[in-house]
């Protein structure tokens, strides 16, 4: 018990108003699912049911795609300036409702309020602002090529950054003149449904954005719908592969943003205290529910003990608990399923010979929780070094030279991100050049910006989101002039 215990500092939920049931958002209206199916969505920190949400069946998906197709004619014919205005308005309303969205995101998903408030929601607005700015400049985005919309886009997003993943998908799509049917993850539908309200508030023409809630089956219906021109998916590599198989030969465009097992590489000349912050941020931010999480720590052997000592000590100041408490650093695991998976893989790690260290945390009785965990003595030939755990679990191994670090870092089927910690500028450039990862962070981690393209190599997927590159999946390029 510390001398100084911080008193609870809860963010109020009064600003949020959650309906008992939600329909599907199709053609600008909330409609009941044709076969009347609903499923429950909960708060993973308390297991309390928040609402009943529609489960979209075949007819519902048909209706949504049809609404998107119907809206496409007019929307794609609007000038870029006009589309920009709608997109800017959406961005502004997101900002105006920022606190409400942040609280709702934390309630439905489990992430700490300080993250949803300071990272997720600001980035959501930023993405809409950014792509609003491109809407009227598409003629300049691809020198010598004209850009026209693709058509109806099917977008499937995960539960780790629900509203942010929605923004990454919808903002570029509509800015480029496409219409969308988006399916949020089954455990985190609420901010997407609130976003639907925001579309209406912004006066967005009906059918430009459609939100169909549901689980895997709904996703499959959407992906396989014959009148969809493009599919964008963020989620597990396993499902990504299934989608790629189903889309093969259909003529549909595809982008995938999948899993990762990123190496966070610390050299002996790294600024050690800040590197420890980078390690903590890399794997414990959002409880490690991050595709680009720095889940493999590669420590230069000469500083390994020192860094591990500092890291263990730092774990002692991480606060796990109520996601709505402003002082919470580590929130709830998103679902029982995910918690079981994390526990299983950590068990595997220990069986494989890794040493387990966990911060001492008061685990609340209800809800899904896993304390920040460090597995040391890990080797590349351990499952916990290969398989994505998607939880607050760090696997630690050592290396001796730059070449060895690169070899180990690249020795994975994934290739989404990597981190490099060193004082030496030339080493940063060299590592960035040789690491096979779509994003390389130098002396930082988990930094996102709408101007910066994000995406992976190898089984982490293909296609980029953010920046000028993020326009590519959403345009058809004309012949070179």
């Amino acid at each position, binding site marked *: 018990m510390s001398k100084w215990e*911080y008193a*609870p500092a809860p963010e109020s939920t009064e600003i949020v108003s959650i309906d008992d049931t939600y329909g599907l958002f199709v053609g600008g209206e909330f409609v009941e699912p044709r076969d009347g199916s609903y499923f429950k969505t909960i708060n993973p920190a308390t297991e309390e049911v928040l609402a009943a949400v529609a489960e979209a069946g075949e007819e519902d998906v048909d209706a949504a795609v049809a609404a998107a197709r119907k809206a496409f004619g007019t929307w794609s014919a609007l000038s870029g300036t006009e589309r920009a205005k709608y997109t800017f308005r959406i961005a502004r309303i997101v900002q105006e409702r920022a606190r409400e969205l942040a609280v709702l995101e934390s309630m439905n998903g489990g992430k700490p309020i300080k993250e949803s408030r300071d990272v997720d929601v600001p980035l959501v607005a930023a993405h809409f602002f950014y792509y609003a700015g491109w809407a009227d400049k598409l003629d300049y985005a691809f020198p010598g090529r004209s850009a026209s919309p693709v058509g109806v886009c099917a977008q499937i997003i995960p539960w780790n950054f629900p509203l942010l993943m929605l923004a990454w998908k919808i903002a570029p799509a509509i800015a480029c003149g496409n219409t969308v049917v988006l399916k949020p993850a089954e455990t985190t539908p609420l901010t997407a449904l609130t976003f639907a309200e925001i579309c209406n508030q912004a006066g967005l023409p009906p059918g430009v954005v459609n939100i169909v809630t549901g689980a895997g089956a709904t996703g499959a219906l959407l992906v396989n719908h014959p009148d969809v021109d493009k599919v964008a998916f963020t989620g597990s590599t396993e499902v990504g592969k299934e989608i790629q198989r189903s889309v093969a030969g259909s003529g549909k465009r595809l982008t995938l943003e999948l899993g990762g097992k990123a190496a966070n590489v610390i050299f002996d000349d790294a600024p050690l205290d800040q590197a420890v912050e980078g390690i903590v941020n890399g794997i414990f931010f959002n409880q490690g529910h991050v595709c680009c999480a720095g889940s493999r720590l590669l420590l230069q052997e000469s500083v390994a003990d020192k860094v591990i000592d500092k890291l263990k000590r730092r774990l002692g100041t991480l606060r796990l608990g109520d996601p709505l408490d402003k002082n919470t650093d580590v929130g709830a695991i998103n679902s029982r399923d995910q918690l079981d998976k994390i526990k299983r893989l950590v068990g595997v790690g220990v069986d494989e010979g890794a040493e387990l260290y966990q911060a001492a945390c008061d685990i609340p009785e209800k809800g899904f929780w896993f304390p920040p965990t460090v597995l040391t003595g890990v080797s590349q030939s351990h499952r916990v070094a290969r398989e994505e755990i998607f939880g607050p679990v760090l696997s630690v191994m050592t290396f001796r030279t730059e070449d060895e670090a690169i070899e180990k870092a690249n020795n994975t089927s994934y290739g989404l991100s990597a981190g490099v910690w060193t004082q030496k500028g030339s080493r940063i450039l060299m590592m960035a050049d040789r690491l096979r990862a779509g994003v390389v962070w130098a002396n930082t981690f988990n930094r996102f910006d709408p101007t910066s393209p994000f995406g992976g190599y190898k089984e982490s997927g293909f296609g980029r989101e953010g920046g000028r590159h993020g326009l590519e999946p959403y345009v058809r390029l004309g012949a070179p002039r």
Partner: protein
Amino acid sequence: MATVIGRQSSLDLADRIGGSVDEVGADERAASLAKRSIKKDSKLWALDLALRCCDLTTLEGMDSPGKIRQLAAKARRPQPGDDSIPPVAALCVYPRLVKPAVEALAGSPVKVASVATAFPSGQADLDIRLQEIERAVGDGAHEIDIVISRGAFLAGDDEAVFEEVRRSVEVAGDAHVKTILETGELGSFDRVRRAALIAMAAGSHFIKTSTGKVSPAATLPASLVMAEAIRDFHDETGRKVGLKVAGGIRASKEALRYLVVVHETLGDEWLDPQWFRIGASSLVNDLLMQIDKQRTGLYSDPDRYTLD
């Protein structure tokens, strides 16, 4: 009496546990700690601690015995008629005012701290600077706040910096020495860390951010870097050194942020006037106002807080 590591191994220490500091990372960590929301009982406890850690300070050309006597009354009893309000840790004055300060504080637990060594610039010969310390200690100062020679440090003469601090600690005898790094003049956090390690290796009881006469004075990131240096020094040598933050800290909210930095970097043991001080003048009244607000739910008229 401070224990000092052998001269060669002390400078080695700065190299051995030195290392570098990433500015962006340090700024981010400090910003993240500044976001802690301290409420209710934990806030009241912290406000009380902050008050007990204040070095109530006057370092003006205008300082006179009369001023010192009156400020000393404030130091002993910050809120007349309210015995639940503790005295501050120390009264910090120029060397010539040590005698009146000692007289005025006789019988109270408040310490007398004196600046010395050609404060604030440090631009005087070593023998003159040491004489200042001797006089102040002779007049009864319990604590001496010295400055390092930034000129020597920035010219690369670590040995001179070390030696000056070592001699100062020696000459101060039983008085505790707080060594001011003047972080605002050092340029980078790498240098702040290095200066901190040298000052500690040379025997300082406390390291202090600033003279308060130069801007920027105390900042949260610089203090974080110093706290990390203190922690690493303690890990390496077993010796505890205190942290004093000074200059520009006027709001209680800001003072509490420094407490959070100490709490989450150094831990419980440092949350005590023996190991943590805030150089303050107007902060004291803001702390009193915030304590009243916590207790009563209301902000009082500012004239309820005395100006001495």
